[in-house]
């Protein structure tokens, strides 16, 4: 393995801005006075509340579930009284039902929260634990982890990858987690290996985090059968298809899942959550959130209860530094700009990025000069300039012909475009049209 050189085709160097928060140890955020816990934080079916207004709940208590397989259970993150169940906007931009809990300050744990011994668990028991503890992919997409681990009959998995690339600029949560909780991550990874019955296991980390590489290497024992793969620092190295190609050389085609090439990818934070679920019986009710950007007085990495409002975390980071331009949930390349701070942290919230007003450039969009830089950077081998041109004319058929659906929406094309054209933005829109059209016919 060509350590430090592993990479994918295409991609782009982006400014990192990691220095704002990477040296800040994880700090436990104050538990909020009110937690707003969405019933749908994940891909799949929404949960239904299993508590009523007026009920007293404790930390780790199940408050939402559904019978659907592709879904993820939701737990209380604070102890207190259910004040309200209401529909509100969350950071993904959609509206969903939320259970509002008022904190009684006791931080009482639910009696179900107790640890297990990994050696005594069968693979299926591990997967059940993952499901019961509401674990969903913490890299951002929030795909229910037990679904990812339930391999359909006839498919064979031989490699499992833990994603510690953290290629999004600004975000440092995974980096801190690897530095401070490497043992937990390795423990969680061993559980994943056991659940999937896989021998080959890699942790992929970009070479801008060599201290994390060392920390993780130190935590791995020879008998664990885990190898650290040092990746080139290039965006989007942490995209699922990119990291699989970088480490295994296998290509996942359009619309295909990694398991088609025998690989399962999980995030380092997800592995930590699995370790917590097994060792301490802890459901996924808190996560690391990087609050960063030059629009923040004191950028920090927080351990945050799910349901904590963004405004609360911004306050605990010293507030805004100057006039805020954009508040982004996630990183600057794929994150979602928020119109309000009244949105809660969810399982997929990796960061809150505040760009001051002067950093939010409103540059005029110029005509395409056909320089071809978007082709150079596209990790999917697409021709973004053409797809975007068809998308802007709403030519669904041609956009489809140019393989718009293979776009992973990483935004590298829009980033590099000298004419400042909204390439990724328009392609994202036409993808929805293509999918809608396919469903109709």
């Amino acid at each position, binding site marked *: 393995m060509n350590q430090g050189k592993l990479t994918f*085709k295409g991609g*782009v160097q*982006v*400014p990192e801005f990691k220095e704002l928060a990477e040296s800040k140890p994880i700090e436990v955020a104050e538990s909020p006075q009110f937690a*707003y816990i969405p019933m749908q934080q994940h891909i799949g079916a929404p949960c239904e509340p299993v508590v009523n207004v007026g009920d007293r709940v404790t930390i780790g208590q199940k408050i939402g579930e559904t019978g659907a397989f592709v879904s993820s259970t939701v737990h209380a993150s604070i102890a207190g009284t259910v004040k309200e169940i209401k529909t509100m906007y969350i950071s993904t931009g959609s509206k969903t039902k939320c259970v509002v809990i008022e904190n009684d300050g006791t931080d009482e744990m639910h009696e179900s929260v107790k640890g297990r011994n990994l050696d005594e668990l069968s693979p299926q028991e591990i997967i059940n634990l993952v499901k019961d503890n509401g674990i969903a992919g913490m890299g951002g997409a929030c795909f229910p982890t037990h679904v990812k681990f339930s391999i359909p009959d006839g498919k064979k998995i031989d490699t499992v990858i833990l994603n510690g690339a953290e290629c999004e600029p600004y975000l440092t949560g995974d980096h801190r987690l690897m530095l401070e909780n490497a043992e937990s991550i390795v423990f969680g990874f061993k559980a994943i290996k056991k659940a999937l019955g896989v021998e080959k296991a890699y942790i992929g980390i970009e070479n801008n985090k060599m201290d994390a590489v060392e920390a993780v290497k130190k935590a791995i024992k020879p008998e664990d059968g885990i190898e650290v793969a040092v990746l080139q620092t290039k965006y989007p190295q942490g995209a699922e*298809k990119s990291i699989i190609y970088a480490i295994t050389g296998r*290509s996942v*085609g*359009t619309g*295909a899942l990694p398991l088609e090439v025998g690989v399962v990818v999980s995030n380092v934070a997800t592995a930590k959550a699995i370790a917590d679920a097994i060792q301490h019986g802890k459901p996924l009710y808190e996560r690391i959130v990087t609050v960063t950007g030059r629009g923040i*007085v004191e950028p920090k990495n927080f351990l945050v209860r799910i349901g904590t409002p963004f*405004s609360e975390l*911004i*306050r605990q980071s*010293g*507030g*805004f530094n100057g*006039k*805020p331009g*954009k508040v*982004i949930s*996630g990183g*600057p*390349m794929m994150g*979602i*700009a928020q*119109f*309000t*701070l*009244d949105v809660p942290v969810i399982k997929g919230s990796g960061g809150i*990025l505040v*760009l001051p007003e002067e950093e*939010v450039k409103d*540059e005029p969009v*110029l*005509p*395409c*000069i*056909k*320089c*071809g*830089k978007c*082709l150079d950077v596209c990790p*999917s*081998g*697409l*021709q973004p*300039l053409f797809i975007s041109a068809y998308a802007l004319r709403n030519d669904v058929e041609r956009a489809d012909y*140019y*393989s718009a659906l*293979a776009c992973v929406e990483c935004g590298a094309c*829009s*980033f*590099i*475009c*000298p*004419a*400042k054209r909204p390439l*990724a*933005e328009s392609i994202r829109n036409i993808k929805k049209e293509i999918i809608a059209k396919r469903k109709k016919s």
Partner: protein
Amino acid sequence: MDGKVIDPTSNDTVVLDDMLIVSLSPHIKSDESVKRTMLDVIIALVPAMIGSVYFFGFDAIRLLLVTVVAALIFEYGIQKLFKKPVRIMDLSAIVTGILLALNLPAGTPWWVAAFGAAFAIIIVKEFFGGIGQNFMNPALGARAALVASWPGIMSSYVNPDGISAATPLGILKAGEGNLPAIQSMIFGDIGGVIGETSAILLLIGGVYLIIRNVIDWKIPVLYIGTTTVVLMLLGVDSSNLIFHVLGGGLILGAFFMATDYASSPVTPKGKMIFAIGCGLLTALFRVKGGLPEGVSYAILLMNVATPLIEKFTRPKVFGEVK
């Protein structure tokens, strides 16, 4: 949660809801810009411009000024007339003006140069949709129009010393006359259009464009390489090859014209086919055709073939099995 946060500087609460800017990701952009790209091309042409002024003196200054100013005026005028946003600040008209001037013989009258600029900007560029939409290189299109309209003027070359003289390839084609020394071809001091006289000055600019990642090195290398190989296959004496490479506008064309974004393929494979096609046509024109130089028409013909090349060289989508 009422849309308010504490402003730590004043201990007041501020309502944010109407202040935050919302747009789709990505939220950061690179420093690349159209203007910077065009500026890079202009910078790359500075050595050749200085060379042309050094060798041809006032004639070169006159032609450069006329074409650049005319290109800017015509672009401004036509964009106003068509009620389109005026984009002269993107510097692309200046690039076209400079390239056109560098493709003219020193003795070209000012009004012929100005007509060339008008043709390049109005007919080739703006009539087809402006920057990025021209189907052929504006400067070369204009040169072709001028050659067709005033063949006498466009083929009366002078040496830098002011004495009228054939170009090295013209001498080769005719089979009579005295070929210049190789040093003259490398450093300048040969007959031809004002921009092609010094190979080394053009190469300095070309290397700058490659380093700045403005052009793909494969295009000039494949172009010049193919021309050389095909000329050899066609039986050109190997002692004359150096004149073919350094003369006849090949270096100017390969680095600055065949690499024009709008009129050459955008696909990686397409770029290579384009460059090889240019090289093949250039060699054929020189040996089998009536033209001693052939670079302009080779590139123009390949410009026209560009959409077709792009259609057949769609890059493989990641993970796609073909």
